């Protein structure tokens, strides 16, 4: 090669400055001649020839925009004087407490622009450790419920008229109740300040009394404790100390006493890793398939009336006596449970869901015998969640009838709906002066003479003492939306002497706590924290046990009712006792066991389906099971108990006791006049299910099970299920094993998939990600988001589902649309049965967008509306989506959701919701679209319009917020603080999330260090490379666990 230089000019040869300047500017483009535009007018401006097309394009586009595209005008009125603590767009968080009929969960309320929009668990609470449940998550929606009463009212003929001004109301009611024996009928009150107010009230009305009424009562337990320990209370339980847990029908992970607290405790012994290869052992004896039962290691079924006999048998088995039930599996279970309980040396706990005093006495005796009292049962700290005594209610009604009680003030209870003998209560109510503090026009309130609606808890000051010495404070997060008043204020006003200094609850509350805590600083700190807890953990103390009633109790408990069929009433984790029945988020939350929304139904066993309905869910050959599985219309049966009957559709659930029908309470809310139900109680509650409270019987305490007769009818009724097939079909969706196999060889659980992965890589390489494809692998530097879900600690409680709904403005679609499989949940809980059909194992698997690195949805979208971010997120661009639904077809996990109708009112076409209501859409969808309810929407998340696909975004708004914070603080470590909504809500910390490229992150450690033997991806063989890993389930049982035992049936 020649080194000769050729030059064109002297300038080039000598590299003069002028030459360099000219080469630099050789292709210089004329800038827009803006300088010429100053004041000579645009018409005089020069237009370079080369830019003609640019100008033409611009002016055409501008003209078209100006002429045709109308931008809707939205008026935003800024603050005239901005409040100090509100920055538009920046959320504030306030500690408060979710309270609902004795339930209390410490929470942090996210408030945006003065509106509470999301409930998060308060991590400072040692009771819940930041956990929540579905009802607490959903309660923010109740605040914006359009059926909330807006002002004080008094009865006027058949209707009500507004009472203008609280003073007028006070005078009127004050006169009406003066000199009468006043009964306060409330739900369980565990607020210390309120209890103090009630005491003061009782001083003013000495002939009155305070009655606490729980729709689902724990009276049997409280009375049994009185008999055994001399304490009319419920102790606190320590599931975290229990290595062996035996539950007799107590749904402590779902609905029993304090499920959030217990789930959190329970999960501590359900986490398993290489370093801690231990699990608690959980036995469940029950009649229905409960959420707790579905999490049990070993589960046995019996008739509801056999509960006492089982308890007695366990007690006897502790002394070596063998049980003698006709069901040998049950006998074996009792033996096994007793052996385990004995060997646990006090680190064991027996709980029972029965409301029978005698059975609870036997349970106390068992706990005494195994040494649980003082180890897992703590009498130093009581549980104050439920205090109602069933007998008190009976006395009250009698006194109301006899005139011994002249006035009843009702707060937060609805006995006309939930009391078993509703008519008796109604008649009694008509005889007295009745005042309701309830927030909505429920069945009881509409029969009262005076109504003074109390605040929603998000508008209230207050406190709760769910456990002795553990306080949780409430502070309002929004000004009262309506003309409501704290019911405590009413009590103060009606009982205080004239001229009293304190005549409202807020002042009372502040004075009370300032005095109690000693200083304003401590008070403010307590408000900020939300919780006040003992500085030192008190030692667990045993109660003094007395067995004076035991012999009697054993005899009474051991008797078993004869009857071919028995019913058992239970609460669903969503609707509970029915107080939140008008909450569309809860109504649309699929029950984790049955996956049914918007209804209650009769849960029956496959055996009963066969004998009663000739419905053979096992028989695949005849097409019968297919019909049952694939059609939402289910046969209706008629159940009669003590002359009262109810007709409900059936749901066949394996694991139900063959002689038991389970019915959920909380449904069938109905005003006195059916037509007004939608307006008074609400559009969502209207028409959802049937009320089964009338089937409760009273026998000293309320009994939630009875002998029943059942017959089939010719009718069918559609149930809206979100999952119809309950078996994995041996597909690599779930991996499980038992503890023994896992401890012996941790690799065994994922052995099969590991081998298969190697088999399908090129050249048998171990690098499945790179070598199982012919396409190149790309580096994924920086942040790569990933999630891990522990199937061992996930109980299926569904708090995450509601949290996701609230965080991401997920639409409610109503029963009719769910029935057409059009539900919108971004996160769902898949439920699979495995093993014995009569008593299967159940696995819950939270399923959400897996954010696949090799996502099949992405390449099929014709308009690239879904794509991959550099942080590993599978993104959905709503305003690019044209709705071909190809991505949804191609998603192996079926997590993509299409906006089939205008669920949000955000459609491009105006008013096209109303024409659909009644034919394709339920009125409950409209409930979510009124101006009041829309205040719950999260402004950080787009409300999707009709016709687009949506799906889990990994709460990208939270990711962005955390990253921004980390950037502002110049500290990348802060990214580890990120918490997505489902993870935050989880009471058992089953969900971990973070940057998988960060070796210090939890997610990295779980996948690569701690849980390498359990971490798997769902259907990994497809090589879609999901970013959500699951940890295989390990059960502490002797039974063989695994998919090969699976039986096919439709459930």
């Amino acid at each position, binding site marked *: 090669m020649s080194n000769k230089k050729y030059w064109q000019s002297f300038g080039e040869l000598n590299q003069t400055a002028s030459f360099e300047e000219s080469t630099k500017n050789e292709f210089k483009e004329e800038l827009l001649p803006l300088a010429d535009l100053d004041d000579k007018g645009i018409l005089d401006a020069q237009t370079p020839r080369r830019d003609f097309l640019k100008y033409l394009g611009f002016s055409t586009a501008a003209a078209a925009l100006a002429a045709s595209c109308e931008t809707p005008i939205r008026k935003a009125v800024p603050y005239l004087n901005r409040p100090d603590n509100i920055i538009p767009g920046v959320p504030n968080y306030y500690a408060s407490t979710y309270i609902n009929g004795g339930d209390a969960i410490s929470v942090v309320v996210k408030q945006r622009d003065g509106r509470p929009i999301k409930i998060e668990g308060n991590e400072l609470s040692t009771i819940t450790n930041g956990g929540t449940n579905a009802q607490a998550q959903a309660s923010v929606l109740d605040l914006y419920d359009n059926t909330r009463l807006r002002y004080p009212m008094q009865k006027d003929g058949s209707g009500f008229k507004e009472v203008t001004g609280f003073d007028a109301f006070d005078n009127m009611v004050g006169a009406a109740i003066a000199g009468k024996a006043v009964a306060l009928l409330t739900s369980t009150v565990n607020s210390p300040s309120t209890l103090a107010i009630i005491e003061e009230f009782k001083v003013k009305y000495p002939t009155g009394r305070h009655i606490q009424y729980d729709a689902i009562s724990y009276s049997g337990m409280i009375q049994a404790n009185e008999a055994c320990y001399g304490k009319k209370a419920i102790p606190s339980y320590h599931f975290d100390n229990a290595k062996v847990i035996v539950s007799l029908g107590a749904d402590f992970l779902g609905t029993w006493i304090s499920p959030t607290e217990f789930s959190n405790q329970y999960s501590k012994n359900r986490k398993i890793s290489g370093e801690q290869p231990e699990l608690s052992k959980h036995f469940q004896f029950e009649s229905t398939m409960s959420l707790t039962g579905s999490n049990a290691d070993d589960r046995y079924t019996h008739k509801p009336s056999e509960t006492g006999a089982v308890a007695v048998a366990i007690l006897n088995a502790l002394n070596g006596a063998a049980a003698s039930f006709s069901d040998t599996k049950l006998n074996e279970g009792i033996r096994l449970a007793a052996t385990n309980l004995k060997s646990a040396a006090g680190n064991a706990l027996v709980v029972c869901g029965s409301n029978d005093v005698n059975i609870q006495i036997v349970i106390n005796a068992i706990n005494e015998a195994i040494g649980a009292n003082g180890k897992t049962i703590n009498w130093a700290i009581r549980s104050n969640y439920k205090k109602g005594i069933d007998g008190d209610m009976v006395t009250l009604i009698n006194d109301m009838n006899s005139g011994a009680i002249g006035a009843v003030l009702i707060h937060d209870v609805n006995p006309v709906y939930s009391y078993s003998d509703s008519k008796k209560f109604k008649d009694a109510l008509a005889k007295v002066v009745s005042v309701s503090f309830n927030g909505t026009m429920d069945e009881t309130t509409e029969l009262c003479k005076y109504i003074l609606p109390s605040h929603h808890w998000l508008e209230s000051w207050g406190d709760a003492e769910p456990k002795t010495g553990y306080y949780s404070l409430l502070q309002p997060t929004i000004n009262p939306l309506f003309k409501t008043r704290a019911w405590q204020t009413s009590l103060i006003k009606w009982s205080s002497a004239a001229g009293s200094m304190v005549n409202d609850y807020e002042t009372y509350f502040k004075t009370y706590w300032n005095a109690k805590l000693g200083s304003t600083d401590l008070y403010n700190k307590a408000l900020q924290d939300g919780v006040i807890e003992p500085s030192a953990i008190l030692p667990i103390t045993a109660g003094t046990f007395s067995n004076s009633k035991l012999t009697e109790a054993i005899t009474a408990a051991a008797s078993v009712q004869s009857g071919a069929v028995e019913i058992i009433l239970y609460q669903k984790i969503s609707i509970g006792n029915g107080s939140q029945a008008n909450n569309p988020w809860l109504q649309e939350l699929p029950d984790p066991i049955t996956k049914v929304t918007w209804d209650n139904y009769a849960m029956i066993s496959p055996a009963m389906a066969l004998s009663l309905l000739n419905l053979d869910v096992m028989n695949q050959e005849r097409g019968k099971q297919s019909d049952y599985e694939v059609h939402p219309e289910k046969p209706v049966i008629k159940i009669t108990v003590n002359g009262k009957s109810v007709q409900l559709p059936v749901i066949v659930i394996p694991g139900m006791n063959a002689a038991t029908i389970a019915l959920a309470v909380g449904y069938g809310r109905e005003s006195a006049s059916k037509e007004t139900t939608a307006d008074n109680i609400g559009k969502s509650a209207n028409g959802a299910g049937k009320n089964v409270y009338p089937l409760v019987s009273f026998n000293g305490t309320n009994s939630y099970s009875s002998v029943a007769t059942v017959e089939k009818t010719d009718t069918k009724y559609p149930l809206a299920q979100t999952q119809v097939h309950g078996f994995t079909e041996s597909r690599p969706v779930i991996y499980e094993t038992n503890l023994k196999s896992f401890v012996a060889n941790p690799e065994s659980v994922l052995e099969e998939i590991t081998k298969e992965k190697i088999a399908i890589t090129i050249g048998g390489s171990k690098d499945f990600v790179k070598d199982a494809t012919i396409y190149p692998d790309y580096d994924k530097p920086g942040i790569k988001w990933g999630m891990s879900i522990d199937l061992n600690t996930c109980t299926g409680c569904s708090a995450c589902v509601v949290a996701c709904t609230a965080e991401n403005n997920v639409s409610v679609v109503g029963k009719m*649309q769910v029935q057409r*499989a059009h539900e919108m949940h971004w996160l769902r809980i898949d439920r699979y049965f495995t093993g014995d059909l009569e008593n299967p194992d159940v696995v819950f698997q939270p399923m959400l967008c897996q954010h696949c690195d090799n996502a099949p949805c992405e390449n099929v979208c014709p308009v690239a509306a879904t794509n991959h971010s550099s942080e590993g997120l599978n993104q959905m661009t709503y305003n690019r989506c044209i709705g071909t639904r*190809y991505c949804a077809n191609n998603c192996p996990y079926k997590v993509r959701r299409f906006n*089939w109708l205008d669920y949000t009112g955000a459609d491009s076409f105006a008013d096209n919701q109303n024409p659909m209501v009644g034919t394709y859409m339920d009125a409950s969808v409209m409930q979510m679209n009124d101006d009041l309810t829309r205040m719950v929407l999260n402004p950080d998340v787009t409300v999707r319009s009709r016709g687009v696909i949506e799906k889990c975004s990994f709460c990208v708004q939270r990711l962005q917020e955390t990253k921004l914070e980390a950037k502002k603080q110049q500290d990348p470590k802060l990214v580890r603080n990120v918490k997505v909504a489902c993870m935050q809500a989880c009471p058992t910390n089953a969900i971990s999330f973070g940057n998988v490229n960060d070796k210090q992150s939890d997610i990295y450690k779980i996948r690569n260090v701690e849980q390498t033997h359990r971490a798997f991806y769902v259907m990994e063989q497809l090589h879609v490379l999901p970013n959500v890993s699951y940890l295989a389930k390990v059960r502490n049982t002797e039974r063989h666990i695994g998919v090969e035992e699976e039986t096919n049936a439709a459930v």
Partner: protein
Amino acid sequence: MSLLKYESQLREPLVDGNKNYHQITEDIIRPIEMKPSRLWYIGFFISIALLLFGVYSVYREVTYGIGQWNVNKTIGWGWDITNFVWWIGIGHAGTLISAILLLFRQGWRTGVNRAAEAMTIFAVMCAGQFPIWHMGRVWMAFFVLPYPNSRGPLWVNFNSPLLWDVFAVSTYFTVSLLFWYSGLIPDLATVRDRAKTKFRKMFYGIASFGWTGSTKHWQRHESLALVLAGLSTPLVLSVHTIVSFDFATSIVPGWHTTIFPPYFVAGAIFSGFAMVQTLLIIVRKVLHLQEYITVGHIEAMNKIIVLTGSIVACAYLTELFIAWYGQNPYEWYAFKENRANLFSPYGWSYYLMMFCNVLSPQLFWSSKLRRNITVTFFMSIIVNIGMWFERFVIIVTSVYRDYLPSSWSTYYSPSIWELGFYLGTFGLFFTCFFLFAKYFPVIAVAEIKAVLKTSGENYKVKMTDLEKADAEKFYIDEVAHAH
């Protein structure tokens, strides 16, 4: 003298009835010039009614949402895409007849090609409705067009088979339309020339683009036909291949199958010919064209039906075998349980498809049945039903129970508005076809004249006369006179 008269017995004539050119023109053009029959009005109004119902169904769907349909979170595509593939498939016979048979110089195509091509165009028009209106936001449908815009890097996704569809179907429609219309020009000119009213003259005058029938025109016309035939031929294969990619390139078990392209093409031709049969058997009867669309034509098409039907059968069995042999548990489940299991929810549709597409066409091995008009008509309906179910089986039975069992679907059957949309496309198709049959020559007049053995037939008559004639007289009259 009989030596002068050689006649092949192998081929039957393509046109019966000793037609001469004038007669052909009369037979085919006359219906255009007459008032339509009562039957035409009845048929036309039924079609219009169906079309209006379809328009209303689509109006509801676009205004209020696809939530009125029964497709769901698992079955994203149901009747909509089934109907799309079915209509697209039907179109294929027209293109095959006009293009491939032209290149292969199959004279018999002239009797049926015009109607078949019209059918293609109308079928593609019907097909196109589905992918457009099944979109959630059809008003944003223009996003699928790769036009220069101001959205920066956001463009169409060339990886998506749906985008390939956009190109494939629009190309197909354009080429088919051009082909059909260019073939029509000489005939439209004939209609124009015969027109008596001013409006007719003007309408057909404009429509025939100033055709004069000059040699130059004919030469260009022929060349254009050849070029378009050359362009159309690959389209016959490519369009349905690309449609099959919608499924084949996905990961849904039962869709993800490499055999789909040839299988879809064969199926398309199969169903297309069945549809041609259905239409032409009616047309020849109603417009009295039995002499132009002869039993010979019908038999020829039945032969194609039995051929393509057997290819399809072969594909079905191959697919089933490979599903088993391939040992992919998901795919095997889709075939074994979702389809071949008669007791599964959709088992019946698989067996219905097998019966209609595999068993029933085998009847056509018998030449007697092949030439029986009633049997053919009945069979053509059966095949169309079968081919509709083939698409239904592929689309719905694959996706309703795919990977994750938790998401397996409930039973899917269409809602009234899904059904209405489908019926509406029938309305569109037949409305177009009725208008076509009324206002355009349903047989290619110019082309059929080219295959008419006029000279042969006339020669035969002349020779017979000659043989009978007196030789002396013949000599005097003809030969001497000539001198």
